[in-house]
């Protein structure tokens, strides 16, 4: 019945039977209560009496007087604010190249949650973990509260006066003025920059990106005459080949790509086809983990792989082959034939920043006819406009002393540019240095004036993430501190006295060609919706136009040349350059640098939610580390024992990184090591300092003018005897080897039988004829009646990419505490929902040789896991105080004020999803540097006032966002109707950029979940059972008969059935 005999393992520890793993494997909790009795045994009775005495005294004191509390109303209540009712404002998030149109939830004027804006055709209502977490950055105590001049607080007026006079005299003397920024996508801001430049003729604007896409732009300039990043449409691609581009994680526009990609991965009765995804990469990335065929390659092999792929396709397309090194990877041939089979419906992308490689990629896409279908050069993506060469020459200029003034517009090149150290030295030679950073970061610490910018939730603004698609930023709160929007600062320094809001309106008045009432209507609608797209730019997605009633012609602000010529790239020159610079087969270790989906370029380093979010692949928190393959670890003699492993020392040329932690990572290409950027911030704040880590930015090199995120030569790895434990959540909460957790199959099998891969357990009983029955038909209990609602959650393992946006969304919504590195190591992380990541391979894991094979390049499956809200919940029956009970709506309720902390429930939970408050995490000095959202008045502003902040000693877990359910029901009741899907959704499901989670009322036949799962009511022995008829649907651990209300859908890979090895 079950041919799926793959072995699943959660990490190397399980595979090697590590003592620490084995010790903890059978335990829900890894220790005793932290109630140490330091004074020894003798005094415990006395202590008890003391405590008793104190308790009684405290109780009687408490009884004497209840504290007087104040009720303080507004002086003048704003019309649109009602205490207790949330307001939602559309806005725009843009940071480090990540764009998302968002809806900001505010309560009593405080932003508390960021959700995706479904009206946007780009982000389509999806968010990433960073977007979700960005609300906490608003309440970051490390933000500057006032402008500073040389480290001293100063008033805005005097600062402006000083800057204007200095800039004036510099310009008058012909001194060079430079403004350095990351990509600016705001059209009005660009206009202000132009005005600034007009005011100071010697001024120039230099743009660089922390995650550079310069290679793509450069290649497109050569190939098509347009220096742009095109827009990609993964939803139209049947075959996707990615050469190191983590498009689901960090490459260009991950939210948009995840939305598009997941559409091609969905399977149902009507749609039995899915895309096939090949990935060639060094580190196991999120995209690689989702790929059907993944090949681990060294960075130095990139050239050979792309040239070989080019040749394979060229030979069938009648183009000249290029000289290519040998590449032995079998999937190249397969990928080429698949690509050729779906011409025009394929997509080849590369994460490389080398224009030569990107030129070959362009050539391949051109041969396949992908331009105009999956790639659109006429709608360039504007979120990456950085020019690596210009930045490089700026640093040279500064070092030579010819730059007389520099403004760092919300950027931190001293930290995140590879030549940051050079720049830091050069800054001493620049007479006037200004930063608009919101904190005294690495760059701002070296400047004369810091003019702190507002947080984006305090700002006005606009954005053009893609040509013709516009998006607005509106403040959701007044500035918390005496900060000023960077645009206003630039206007003041350009000697403009007006307000940026007026400027913005004027700008759009001109752009829209409207005025008076017509403009007001247009403006109100644009700001309310948050986005609008020009008709001509209507992207092919089927969403309705957000602004379809708006009939205004907008002149394009950008004068980017959109005349795209035919492919004219110099393939031969590119191939020659590749052949020269990529020499595979070297014996040196190669370093592959990458950005983590949680921390990105490190701007958010002071955000504890992101620091504690487990990396989707390594499940590590609070650290960066080098990842290394099992085989290389063996060769180098790195031992991983009880979670600890040796640290290493990395040296390249003159740059050394001392004491870097190591993680043995399955899927890591042999001979390579991976290291994440974005860590090792020295001046981002106390959370970032607590996290620490290694700053790998100096290791970024250059290749053909673009920043090159790898080192292929001369890397020396020295193993140190010092050991370090990375705080992983990886091997927590095991399923004790039960193999019915992940159910998966391949597409060909699914087409034959939609139930492919399903494990359908049977229970032996004397009653039935063949003595085997379905576990759902047996029960000790009489079942529950759900007359009103029956909430359920469906999770499609095929869509889930593991991006972890849901984890952070849950964190934000439910006031989940952050516990910090030590407590994560103690296995006391508090995430209500985790994403279990399982590796699997066909090789047997029993023998040592097989073990190496297995760890080489495993398949990966992500499984979001949260409280399953079992109908026969094992936790409910063991609670001695009935603190966890079942509701008539199918919810497993957790009542904190009744819980006495026996933890029986967690011990009895087969899914291990209950979390125990080992400490009081709020108002506790111990967690001041980690749990910032609960330990200062400022941080507490982010808490959701509808959810209790739990205290020490109580259990907590996923509640299906019961506060949202209650709110949705109430709205419906007030309007005298039944609630619909639009009224109720959980935080995780609404955040999901892949639409992998569907939440709803299973009693409502019209709900999406009922239709998705094809639910039928069946009268069972003990009342009505929900029978899920969708063939892919299953319950995790079905045979134990707890009848969860969370349903998973099998994972289907688009692979050929592989011959099993022995």
């Amino acid at each position, binding site marked *: 019945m079950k041919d799926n005999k793959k072995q699943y393992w959660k990490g190397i520890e399980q595979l090697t039977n590590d003592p620490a793993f084995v010790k903890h494997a059978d335990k829900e909790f890894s220790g005793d209560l932290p109630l140490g009795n330091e004074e020894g045994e003798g005094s415990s009775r006395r202590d008890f009496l003391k405590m008793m005495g104190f308790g009684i005294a405290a*109780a009687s004191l*408490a009884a004497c007087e*209840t504290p007087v509390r104040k009720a303080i109303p507004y002086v003048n209540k704003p019309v649109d604010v009602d205490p207790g*009712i949330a307001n939602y404002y559309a806005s725009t998030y843009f940071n480090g190249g990540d764009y998302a149109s968002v809806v900001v939830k505010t309560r009593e004027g405080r932003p508390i949650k960021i959700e995706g804006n479904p009206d946007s055709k780009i982000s389509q209502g999806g968010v990433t973990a960073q977007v979700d977490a960005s609300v906490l950055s608003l309440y970051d105590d490390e933000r500057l509260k006032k402008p500073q001049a040389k480290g001293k607080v100063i008033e805005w007026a005097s600062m402006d006066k000083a800057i204007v006079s200095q800039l004036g005299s510099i310009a008058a003397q012909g001194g060079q003025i430079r403004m350095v920024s990351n990509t600016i996508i705001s059209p009005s801001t660009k206009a202000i920059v132009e005005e600034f430049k007009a005011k100071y003729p010697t001024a120039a604007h230099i743009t660089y990106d922390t995650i550079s896409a310069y290679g793509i732009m450069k290649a497109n300039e050569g190939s098509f005459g347009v220096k742009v990043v095109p827009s990609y449409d993964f939803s139209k691609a049947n075959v996707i080949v990615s050469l190191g581009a983590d498009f689901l994680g960090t490459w260009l526009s991950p939210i948009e790509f995840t939305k598009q990609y997941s559409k091609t991965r969905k399977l149902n009765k009507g749609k039995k086809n899915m895309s096939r995804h090949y990935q060639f990469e060094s580190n196991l990335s999120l995209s690689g983990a989702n790929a059907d065929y993944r090949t681990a390659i060294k960075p130095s092999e990139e050239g050979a792989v792309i040239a070989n792929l080019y040749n394979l396709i060229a030979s069938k397309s009648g183009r000249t082959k290029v000289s290519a090194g040998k590449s032995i990877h079998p999937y190249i041939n397969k990928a080429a034939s698949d690509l050729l089979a779906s011409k025009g419906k394929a997509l080849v992308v590369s994460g490389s920043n080398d224009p030569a490689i990107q030129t070959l990629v362009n050539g391949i896409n051109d041969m396949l006819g992908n331009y105009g279908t999956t790639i659109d050069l006429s709608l360039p993506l504007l979120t990456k406009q950085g020019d690596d060469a210009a930045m490089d020459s700026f640093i040279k200029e500064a070092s030579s002393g010819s730059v007389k003034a520099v403004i760092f517009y919300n950027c931190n090149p001293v930290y995140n540019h590879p030549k940051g150290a050079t720049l830091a030295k050069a800054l001493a030679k620049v007479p006037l240095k200004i930063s608009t950073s919101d904190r005294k970061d690495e760059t701002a610490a070296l400047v004369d004036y810091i003019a702190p910018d507002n947080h984006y939730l305090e700002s006005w603004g606009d954005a053009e993430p893609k040509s013709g698609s516009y998006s607005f930023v509106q403040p959701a709160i007044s500035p918390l501190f005496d900060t000023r929007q960077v645009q206003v600062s630039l206007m003041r320094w350009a000697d403009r006295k007006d307000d940026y809001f007026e400027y913005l309106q004027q700008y759009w008045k001109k752009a829209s060609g409207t005025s008076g009432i017509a403009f007001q209507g247009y403006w109100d609608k644009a700001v309310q919706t948050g986005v609008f797209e020009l008709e001509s730019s209507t992207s092919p997605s089927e969403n309705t136009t957000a602004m379809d009633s708006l009939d205004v012609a907008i002149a394009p602000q950008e004068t980017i040349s959109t005349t795209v010529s035919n492919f004219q790239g110099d393939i031969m020159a590119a191939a020659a350059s590749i052949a020269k610079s990529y020499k595979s087969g070297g014996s040196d270790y190669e370093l592959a640098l990458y950005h983590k989906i949680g921390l990105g370029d490190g701007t958010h380093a002071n955000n504890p939610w992101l620091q504690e979010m487990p990396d989707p692949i390594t499940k590590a928190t609070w650290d960066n580390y080098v990842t290394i393959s099992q085989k290389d670890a063996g060769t180098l003699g790195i031992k991983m024992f009880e979670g600890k492993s040796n640290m290493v020392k990395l040296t390249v040329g003159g740059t050394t990184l001392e004491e870097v932690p190591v993680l043995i990572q399955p899927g890591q290409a042999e001979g390579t090591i991976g290291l994440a950027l974005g860590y090792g911030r020295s001046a981002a704040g106390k959370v970032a300092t607590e996290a620490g880590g290694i700053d790998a930015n100096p290791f970024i090199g250059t290749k053909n003018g673009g920043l090159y995120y790898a080192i292929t030569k001369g890397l020396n790895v020295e193993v140190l005897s010092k050991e370090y434990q990375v705080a992983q959540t990886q091997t927590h909460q095991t399923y004790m080897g039960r193999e019915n957790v992940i159910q998966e199959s391949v597409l060909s099998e699914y087409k034959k039988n939609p139930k492919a891969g399903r494990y359908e357990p049977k229970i032996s009983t004397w009653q039935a004829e063949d003595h085997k029955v379905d576990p759902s038909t047996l029960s000790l209990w009489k079942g529950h009646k759900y007359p009103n609602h029956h909430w359920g959650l469906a999770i499609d393992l095929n869509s889930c990419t593991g991006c972890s946006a849901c984890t952070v969304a849950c964190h934000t919504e439910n006031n989940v505490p952050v516990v910090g590195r030590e407590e994560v190591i103690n296995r006391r992380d508090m995430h209500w929902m985790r994403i279990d990541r399982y590796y699997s391979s066909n090789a047997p894991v029993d023998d040592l040789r097989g073990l190496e094979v297995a760890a080489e390049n495993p398949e990966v499956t992500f499984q979001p896991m949260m409280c399953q809200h079992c109908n026969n919940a094992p936790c409910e029956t063991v609670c001695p105080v009935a603190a966890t*009970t079942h509701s008539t709506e199918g919810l497993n309720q957790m009542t*904190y004020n009744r819980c006495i902390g026996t933890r029986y429930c967690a011990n009895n939970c087969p899914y291990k999803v209950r979390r125990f408050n080992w400490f009081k995490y709020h108002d506790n000095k111990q967690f001041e540097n980690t749990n910032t959202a609960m330990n200062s008045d400022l941080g507490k502003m982010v808490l959701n006032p*509808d*959810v209790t902040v739990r205290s020490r000693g109580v259990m907590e877990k996923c509640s299906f966002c019961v506060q949202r359910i209650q709110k949705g029901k109430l709205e419906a009741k007030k309007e005298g109707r039944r609630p619909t899907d639009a009224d109720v959704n959980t935080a995780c499901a609404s955040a999901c950029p892949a639409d992998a989670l569907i939440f709803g009322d299973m009693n409502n036949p019209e709900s999406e979940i009922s239709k998705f799962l094809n639910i039928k009511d069946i009268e069972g022995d003990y009342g009505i059972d929900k029978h899920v008829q969708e063939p892919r649907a299953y319950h995790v651990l079905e045979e134990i008969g707890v009848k969860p209300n969370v349903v998973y859908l099998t994972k289907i890979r688009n692979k050929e059935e592989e011959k099993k090895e022995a």
Partner: protein
Amino acid sequence: MTRNFSLARITTTLLISCMCLLTAGYNPLVAQEASSELVIPEDAASISKGEALFKGNCTSCHRVHKKLVGPALANVYERTPSIEWIIGFVKNSQKVIQSGDEYAVNLYAEYNNTQMTAFTGFSDQDIMSILGYIQQETLKGPEVASGGSAENAKEDGGEATGVASGYLTVLMVGLVVVLALILFVLILIITVLKKYLNQRGLDEDDAEVVNATLSLEGIAKSKPFIFMVIFIFSAVAFKTVIAGLYTVGVQEGYQPSQPINFSHKIHAGQYEIDCQYCHTGVRKSKSANIPSANICMNCHSAVKTGSKEIQKIYAAIDYDPATKTYGPNQKPIEWVRIHNLPDLAYFNHSQHVKVGGIECETCHGEIKEMAVVQQYSPLTMGWCIDCHRKTNVNTKGNAYYDNLVEIHDKNSGGEPMKVEDIGGLECSKCHY
């Protein structure tokens, strides 16, 4: 001798037991006068029905222990001419007054000729159950609004005693009678035996024992007596402590003085300003909202501008009544919060007021009579639950409930759907 000694002991014990029983069952026992055929009901069902009717129909004008628009109704069944008179008066008071009934006419005059609504829809039985409730409340005596007293204990004692109290009273009375009889019989036996033994002639020792008179000192020193005293003392102390602990954090009757002497009696009572005019959130939000000063100023920019209390508003918001301009130094008025629900409980006004159709007075008391607002309800979980058990769901015209009502009606046999029946007692309805 042994036998005699134990006789005395039995007597003592019995006496003490009687005392104990009387103490334990210290609920005041009331002899019922069956003056007419209409008997005020005492069973729990009728009383709770009466309570619902009373709260639903009468509380806008009447209280049991307090004079409002109409008279306080405590003892009404005793002071009025007859039960029949009450029934007639409730059904149509004007008819009774016009008939020239002396009591009715006087009453009418006493209350400024305020007409009482005619409750023609009430059956005799309905009115009797209301009287049943009034009688129960009368016997309980007026609530002491001091918060911290043992008075609250009865609230927390909850359901059990309330339901069985009538039955218990009867039981207690029966037991006391039986015990008294036994006592009487025993005394009789002792007397007879003593007489018999004395007649038979006894030696000195025996005679001393037999003829020993019941000395108080002896009783006081007897072990059973000491044991009982200690026992009673501890029981009472224990009960007081528990009851006291239950009142911790319960602020029923809490009546702090406010920074501005705002009177609900004037605004809501005398001028009949709708509650929502100031408490704007009550039908749409979880919080009813303490009104902001701009709402005060809607009227008080013109009304009573000279009043000392109004001047306090002006001072807070930096308003100059002479020039009618606002200054920059505006500060919110810091009212003292009266209703402090713990953070772990979620309460939503709009659910109760808009969806449930509950009157403000149900929880906040006769706010129109409060010059200084006090906390009327205990706001304990028992109080919430109690109401959820008793209150019918306001399903009329709300399509949300249609299917639920249908299902309920199928299985309930005509009982109206209570909040309890649709999950109103579940933890995560209020705790999350």
